[in-house]
């Protein structure tokens, strides 16, 4: 019988997530794995329910992208008691007993924040005298990527006291809110804005529109850094409106399927598997764009 993998996805809240889902579905088909897919509509309790139903269905492996890091002990213990190995994707969990999951494959949000900040630091180094005012578009309040990306970013820019975050507001990871908040930032004329750091590409794309409508040149008058590396971001970079995007690779599917097979075959796997992620500045955008699958 084919291997059965139960996968609990967070939801379909962004293009990134949709690409992630698509990659997993395609890879499962390719690898001949029966995929039981459950969508949690962004709710942790739904994920727990899904995992319980996977246990009841006696699947071979359970994989999931946790909505949030904490709160998994009980249900993972049940999985362990049922003898079903668990793979984490995309983000990790905090559990008292690390043996509750076999491995974690995914990105490191804090590192993404750091990468974004490093790019800004480099830029600042080119003009050592000027102070750079940064505005930040945060993700949804309380969400893991928003917290971690902010943390990583702040950690690195501390190195240069000339870099100041002058405003920070939540754009809820959406284009509409990103645009609205950026509009408001631009109306405040006490300080000039030099850099925009957006927690995801969608907010950056919204903000670019706001900057253009205010009669400024995005990417020139205001440097823009964002995270994810979705197709829209590459288009914006090609047009010279976005300066850099830090990749957060959603195409984990093939790697996940291989892991699932290995885990079932009881092959040893590493506890932490990072995915290859790059930093794409505008210069390489035109070349990279045709390669983007999402």
């Amino acid at each position, binding site marked *: 019988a084919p291997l059965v993998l*139960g996968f609990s*996805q967070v*939801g*379909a809240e962004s293009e990134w997530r*949709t690409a992630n*889902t698509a990659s997993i579905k395609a890879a499962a088909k390719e690898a001949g794995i029966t*995929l*039981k*897919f*459950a*969508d949690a*509509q*962004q*709710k*942790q*309790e*739904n994920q*727990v*329910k*899904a995992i*319980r*139903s*996977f246990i*009841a*269905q*006696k699947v071979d492996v359970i994989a999931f992208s946790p*909505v*949030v*890091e*904490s*709160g*998994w*002990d*009980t249900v993972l*213990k049940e999985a362990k008691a049922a003898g079903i190995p668990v793979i984490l994707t995309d983000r990790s969990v*905090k559990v*008292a007993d690390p043996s509750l999951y076999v491995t974690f494959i995914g990105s490191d949000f804090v590192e993404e924040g750091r990468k974004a900040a490093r790019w800004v630091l480099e830029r600042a180094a080119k003009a050592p005298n000027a102070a750079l005012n940064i505005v930040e578009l945060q993700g*949804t*309040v*309380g*969400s893991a990527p*928003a*917290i971690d990306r902010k943390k990583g970013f702040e950690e690195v820019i501390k190195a240069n006291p000339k870099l100041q975050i002058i405003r920070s507001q939540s754009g809820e990871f959406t284009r509409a809110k990103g645009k609205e908040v950026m509009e408001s930032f631009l109306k405040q004329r006490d300080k000039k804005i030099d850099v925009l750091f957006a927690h995801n590409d969608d907010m950056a794309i919204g903000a670019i529109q706001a900057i253009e409508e205010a009669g400024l040149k995005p990417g020139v008058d205001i440097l823009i850094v964002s995270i994810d590396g979705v197709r829209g971001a590459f288009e914006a970079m090609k047009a010279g409106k976005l300066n850099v995007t830090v990749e957060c690779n959603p195409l984990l599917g093939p790697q996940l399927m291989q892991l699932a097979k290995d885990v079932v075959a009881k092959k040893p796997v590493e506890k932490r598997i990072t995915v290859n992620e790059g930093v794409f500045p505008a210069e390489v955008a035109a070349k990279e764009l045709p390669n983007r699958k999402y």
Partner: protein
Amino acid sequence: MTPRWHAITGAPSFTTWVSVVLMGLLFAAGATAYTGFASTQVVLNLLIDNAFLLVIAVGMSFVILSGGIDLSVGSVLALTTMVAAWLLQVAHWPAEAVIVLVLLGGAAFGALQGVVIHVFRLQPFIVTLAGMFLARGLCFLISVDSITIDAPLFVTLSQTQIPLWGGAFLSPGAVIALAVLGVGLWVAHATAFGRTVYALGGNEASALMMGLPVGRTKVAVYALSGLCASLAGLLFAFYMLSGYGQHAQGVELDAIAAVVIGGTVLTGGYGYVAGALSGVLVLGLIQTLIAFDGTLSSWWTKIVIGGLLFVFCAVQRLLSLKKAHA
């Protein structure tokens, strides 16, 4: 149709029974379609996974029966997990004290909303909507991040499995929820307070003229709902072992839907607290069906949930229309 049939359809609890029968059909459909569906544990999981929703729905039943609505329950739940986690992990309070405090806090939060609704004669929808923002916002003031709980009492309650027959088990949370349902039934149908709640929902002006304690009851109803929400928060904390400001987003709508599906009328006065159980189970069953199916994309998940909800409500409604014509 026979007179016997009339007696059945004419009974006021008819809608509630329709829910139960439809639920049976839904379950039978799942059992034939998916392997492993027809197991005791799948049924018990409905209770385990939805214990917190059931507790909220019991509180919500009272509010809706009284002709009001409480949108703040989901946020109060989240706030409870957050406060409990903070007190346990950061302030290192004893678990028992934390439990008592958050329960009192939830009741007080609800009572406060009740007072505002009653004294200023404001609409419950708006007051509790603001309450919803407030409680959610307070969570993030404590911490934007989630806090893991490792207090022994919570961990034990989380991981205890109460064994039933054949390897199947229930969680303590589910047992507490069933107990709350029992108490709710008793309060609604056997105490003066419960009957005043129904009277309020039937006609508030009349209740006032009948000399019933309208103000007191109203405040108490919201306090009760707040208490249930914070108890649900504790169950949630047992269930997840974490406090988090994003917990239970949109649970208020699930609870309202559960109560209404259970046969309670949203304008108040008609319905049964027991309906909350069938409503919660229906929603849980729909989710379980989808999880067992395992082929639906995110959007088909939404469409199927909406579709099943529609079929359920429409059948229920058509049957009771027939009853009206009979």
